[in-house]
């Protein structure tokens, strides 16, 4: 592979989180009974007219601005013609010559290297429905609930050079969509989808090689695997003196390879033309200004601020800001307990573990920022040890009870009473005369052994500082 470099461009389809479809008033709610969110417009009945959803336009404009695109004051919807039963009009309403937004860019970082990826265009279009094919009968079953759900297609320049860069770009793009609250970013459910155009060329060459378009990439891991496989497949062809064919290839998840979709190529003549049912889309300067004002702090800016304002390491800042609600959680907890480093450590280790196990988003965490602040405060005041805090963390998470309540209920408060601890320390020292001798003759490492014994006997509830102090006093 070293003699070649990969050239990758990505096409991302993001479902917009509007309540209704792009051209009709049907609900976009996911998971409803088949064909319950349909009407004459999205089923393609004759004589109906599409009417554009204002919110879908606003969301698309927001994304355009967030990735530094020029939002065109005038764009045009076009018909993309092809036959498939989940597209009942036999054309998809999309944009072609005059898209909503163009000439944007997105900064990515891979292994510490920063790079800017060009965004060619962002255009609006409608989603298609879904079909299920019968295995036994000559039948396909068509559900049009998704037909007409608003999408934006974000097309990158062929600026990406590796699978790592492609994944970094996708993650950055997804984070922005989620921060803008215009897309839920769910790859498995298909609200964030990606096709990859991959070609290779001799290192240093200017001319592009023949590309393959990869489909069925429904997780970041699949995107990475499929691109890596495709790069090596094409390199083998070129080394053997063969040619790469321009074609669409499906990623086979089980085998980890890409497979040609033969025979589909001739259908790629979409005969786009402007849709006479829709007037050109004019973006008023006021709408543009409103959308510009509504853009919140974006992930990369927030990550940078977390590093400067809270003094967090880059990796922590990156993980915390990757999801908006996790960053919000961190800031809420830090307001209540102003030690960002500690809050960050607890979130990254304990909270994320619980959230992942329960498959819950930070915004729905039963263990609230208030709970976390309370827990950390209890460690500081000596009421509980950090070991007990770690131990009850999952209890707070599952029961939603406050840490205080759980400590009281389970009798886990730290033993900071000198009299009580002294008795325990004495019994440990008496039971281990050999170790005491050794300690006195210089084996000070045994301190850990004594502390450990005391902690064991008190089930971790002894105040470790006090235990240390007491043992030292006794052994001096």
């Amino acid at each position, binding site marked *: 592979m070293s003699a070649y470099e990969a050239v990758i461009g990505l096409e991302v389809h993001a479902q917009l989180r509007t309540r209704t479809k792009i051209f009709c008033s*049907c609900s976009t709610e996911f998971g409803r009974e088949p064909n319950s969110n349909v009407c*004459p417009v999205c089923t393609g009945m004759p004589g109906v007219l599409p*009417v554009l959803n204002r919110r879908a336009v606003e969301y698309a404009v927001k994304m355009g601005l967030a990735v530094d695109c020029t939002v065109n004051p005038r764009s045009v919807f076009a018909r993309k013609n092809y036959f498939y039963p989940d597209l009942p009009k036999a054309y998809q309403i999309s944009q072609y010559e005059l898209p909503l937004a163009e000439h944007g860019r997105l900064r990515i970082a891979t292994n510490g290297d920063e790079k800017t990826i060009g965004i060619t265009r962002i255009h609006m279009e409608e989603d298609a429905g879904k079909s299920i094919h019968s295995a036994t009968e000559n*039948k396909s079953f068509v559900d049009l609930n998704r037909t007409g759900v608003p999408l934006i297609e974000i097309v990158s320049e062929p600026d990406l050079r590796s699978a790592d860069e492609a994944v970094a770009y996708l993650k950055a793009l997804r984070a922005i969509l989620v921060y803008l609250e215009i897309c839920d970013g769910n790859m498995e459910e298909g609200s964030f989808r990606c096709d990859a155009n991959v070609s290779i060329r001799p290192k240093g060459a200017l001319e592009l090689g023949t590309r393959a378009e990869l489909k069925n990439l429904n997780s970041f891991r699949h995107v990475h695997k499929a691109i890596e496989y495709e790069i090596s497949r094409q390199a083998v062809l070129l080394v053997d003196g063969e040619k790469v064919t321009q074609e669409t290839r499906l990623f086979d998840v089980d085998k980890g390879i890409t497979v040609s979709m033969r025979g589909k190529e001739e259908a790629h003549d979409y005969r786009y033309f402007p849709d006479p049912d829709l007037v050109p*889309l004019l973006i008023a300067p006021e709408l543009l200004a409103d959308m510009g004002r509504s853009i919140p702090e974006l992930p990369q800016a927030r990550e940078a601020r977390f590093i400067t304002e809270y003094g967090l390491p880059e990796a922590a800042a990156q993980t915390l800001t990757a999801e908006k609600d996790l960053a919000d959680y961190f800031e809420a907890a830090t307001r209540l307990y102003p030690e960002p480093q500690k809050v960050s450590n607890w979130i990254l280790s304990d909270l994320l573990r619980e959230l992942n196990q329960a498959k819950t988003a930070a915004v729905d965490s039963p263990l609230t920022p208030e709970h976390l602040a309370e827990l950390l405060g209890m460690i500081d005041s000596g009421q509980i040890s950090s070991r007990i805090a770690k131990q009850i963390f999952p209890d707070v998470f599952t029961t939603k009870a406050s840490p205080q309540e759980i400590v009281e209920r389970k009798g886990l408060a730290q033993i900071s009473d000198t009299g009580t601890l002294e008795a325990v320390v004495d019994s440990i020292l008496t039971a281990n005369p050999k170790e005491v001798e050794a300690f006195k003759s210089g084996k000070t490492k045994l301190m850990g052994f004594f502390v450990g014994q005391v902690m064991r006997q008190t089930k971790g509830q002894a105040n470790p500082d006090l235990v240390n102090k007491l043992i030292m006093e006794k052994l001096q």
Partner: protein
Amino acid sequence: MSISTDDAAKVAGLARLNPAPEKITQFADQFNDILDYMQKLNELDTSGIEPLYTPVTHETVFRDDEVLKEYSREELLGNAPETDGNYFIVPRIVG
């Protein structure tokens, strides 16, 4: 520009039609008649004139993002040649 019988056959193929060869010739001829007629328009000098995408002159029409359900599933599936009450059923498409 002229349309050959191959072009006509390709367009027919894209529309999933399979006309008889003599029909293909006939359609290609008709295509060319239409294009010849449209050629008259090309005699006008349109340089510097913005392309007209629609003769409708009113501004962008927006709809508010509010859910409205005007027809039941039964009514919509009622137009389908075949349905099981849940899905539109079509001849199997190998996906």
